[in-house]
């Protein structure tokens, strides 16, 4: 499973993307697993109201959403383009 980070989530985590193997079944479980790794990850995910999630390029609003079919998951703050 490929994980992407953007904007300040990327800066806090310290990497653009990574390939991981996880037993997490939902978005929330994956975030908990990543947050437990170290301070960078826990800082990046410290305010979940500011975290947007996309699974295979589609926004997912619910942290209970299953990631079992996911190939690519992205974490980032609310968008500010345009």
């Amino acid at each position, binding site marked *: 499973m490929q994980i992407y980070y953007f904007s300040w989530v990327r800066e806090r985590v310290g990497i653009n993307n990574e390939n991981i193997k996880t037993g997490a079944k939902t978005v929330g479980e994956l975030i908990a697993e990543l947050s437990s790794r170290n301070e960078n990850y826990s800082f990046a995910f410290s305010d979940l109201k500011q975290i947007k999630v996309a699974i295979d390029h589609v926004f997912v609003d619910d942290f209970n959403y299953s990631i079992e079919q996911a190939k690519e998951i992205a974490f980032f703050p609310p*968008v*500010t383009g345009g």
Partner: protein
Amino acid sequence: MLSIKIQENDFDPGAIFNSVAYNRKDFGAKVLFTGVVKDFHNSNTIEKLFIEHYPTMAEKQLRKICENTFERWEIMEIHIVHRYGLLEPGDNIVNLVLISRGREEALEGAKFIMDYLKSEAPFWKKEYYGKGQAWVTQKIKDAKNIEVWEK
């Protein structure tokens, strides 16, 4: 017709506008919106603006927004360019051209696309000041604009 370009290079808004629908005579309204880097924001002087994006998803989201626009209004063509990378005040960020038979569709469609782009297209801005830098935070108003369209 739909054209979406996400690029680092600059673009020429006037030239793009003139080239859209150059040979068509079946439309009555043509609208261009260009977003430009401002030289200050929240009383900070901006020296540079960095735009980051999520390439595959950005294109998919812009396409989805435009498809919804075509469903909602009788709009004939949409042409979008969005830049990423390091920009300066006065630089072009985003360019949107629409054509339609009547003026209302094109003007409403432009507002619709820009509202959704602002809240659903994965681009992020970081401002560089004389001292320091900060990621731009999403305006509450931008989230509210979407709610109005969803009703």
